[in-house]
């Protein structure tokens, strides 16, 4: 396999958690490869292990077996090549917008001018230059998530790991941020692994929609979305894919479970 073309390779990754009386198998062997610049959405019912998989890629958790390669090198812990965007933002509340975005570059001990330049560029990228001196508590949810995105991009993340990043936002703000995210991705060429529970969001954003099923978590299907952007949520093409993905998701709900397992062989 031409692993060089793969920005991210998840190879036979499993995860077991110890609980009081034994173990829970959260992830059955999962294989997934993502090319550079690709936008992959991970969708599945709650408990299917999609967030666990994302946290393993981020390096916050270790896989029980298997490994994750980024640019051909195995992941051993959190690193600045993979920037996580959390649903609850996880901004440093004691730092202004500017200091939050400058945090990564400062940790790398870049020169003052370099840090300032990067911070400026990324504040402008997310349209927050007017709010540079604000603290997170003085921002709306949408603005906080913009800061979180700028914070990882300012630190040269090659892969954006997004864990239901727009889940806590109202519908209008969510649409706005989805549009902005696509623009940012187009401009920076960053690779995205995006966890969501909204079929519409997955189909609207992703080049691929990876459907996961629970008990233990594994990849059910991998749907390519070959529609030009900007996409129209009400277009028949998009809705056809949306229906197909919804069908895959529904096939794992309790009644259809046996059939789904059978047809996968």
């Amino acid at each position, binding site marked *: 396999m031409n692993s060089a073309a793969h920005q991210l390779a998840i190879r036979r990754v499993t995860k077991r958690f110890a609980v009081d009386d034994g173990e829970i198998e959260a992830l059955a062997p999962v294989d997934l490869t993502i090319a550079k610049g690709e936008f992959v959405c991970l969708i599945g019912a709650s408990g299917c292990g999609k967030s666990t998989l994302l946290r393993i890629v981020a390096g916050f958790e270790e896989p029980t077996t298997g490994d994750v390669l980024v640019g051909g090198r195995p992941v051993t*812990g959190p690193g*600045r090549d993979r*920037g*996580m965007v*959390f649903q609850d933002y996880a901004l*440093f509340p*004691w730092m202004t917008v500017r200091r939050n975005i400058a945090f990564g570059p400062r940790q790398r001990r870049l020169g003052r001018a370099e840090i300032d330049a990067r911070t400026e560029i990324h504040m402008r990228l997310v349209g927050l230059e007017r709010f540079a001196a604000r603290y997170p508590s003085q921002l709306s949810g949408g603005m906080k998530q913009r800061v979180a995105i700028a*914070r*990882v991009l300012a*630190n040269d993340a090659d892969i954006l790991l997004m864990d239901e990043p727009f889940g806590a936002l109202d519908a209008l703000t969510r649409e706005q941020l989805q549009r902005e995210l696509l623009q940012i991705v187009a401009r920076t060429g960053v690779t995205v692994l995006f966890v969501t529970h909204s079929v519409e969001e997955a189909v609207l954003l992703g080049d691929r929609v990876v459907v996961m099923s629970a008990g233990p978590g594994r990849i059910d299907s991998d749907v390519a979305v070959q529609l030009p952007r900007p996409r129209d949520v009400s277009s028949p093409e998009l809705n056809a894919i949306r229906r197909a993905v919804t069908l895959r998701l529904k096939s794992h709900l309790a009644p259809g479970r046996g059939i789904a397992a059978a047809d996968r062989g």
Partner: protein
Amino acid sequence: MAVLTEQVADAPDASPRPALRRRRRLVDRARAIVLGAGFPLLLILLWDRAVDLAGTRLVPSPRQVAVMMYDFSFGGIYDDAFSGTILTHVWKSMQRVYGGFGLAALIAIPLGLLIGRIRTLRQLLDPTIALLRPIPVTAWLPLSMIFFGLGPNAAIFLVFLGAFYPILLNTVFGVRSVDVRLFEAAAMLGCGGAAMFREVVLPAALPAILNGLRVANGFAWILIVVGEMTGVPTGLGSVIMDGRTLSRTDLVITGMVVIGAAGFVTDRIIVAISNRLLAWSPQHHE
């Protein structure tokens, strides 16, 4: 043009509102002062009446204490060993209070950050701390006099002991209650080791740490009286001890009032510093 009309329309509406708000804040402020100062004044009045009614000579009236306070501050009334010596005593006590307090903060904050973050250290030290903490500081008095002899060092040690636990426990609690995501976010941005403590753990735990310092400041002033029982010639605690041996209750109460005032003023200073350092946090304003 549209912008202009908007501004014009805005202007008369905008000006009375801040004025109203300022006035409301002023009224609120005045109310706080009247209520806050009114209650102690009421207590003094009750004290005065009670002394009068009881006809006792053992407890001085507020007026007698005020005279003593004046003499203690400026001299010229009794002209004894205590006349006009307030600053000497306050200064000596301050040195001991903040010697012990500073030492406690210097050790307890870094130790608390480490205990909060490192599981092994927590397992190692938690039981010992829980065991030592309930021992009253006064119980350490004989031992501290053996360790440090008669003099200011024993007092500093006792203040240190009293200030140490509130700072330590609040720091540990502060670190433990930080959202784990903040540490994860910092780690993924390339922050680790000592930088993690300096840049993330310390500022994230700061609200709790400052709270601990505030509690410890109160304890430090409480303990200065015990600390200065160890036979030091100066300090507010020793003034109270002297007052007791001389049966001069007016002097005892004067010492009490000065310690109360010192505790009050330093507490306000810590609150002011907290408000400044925690300007980012909407919850931590008084």
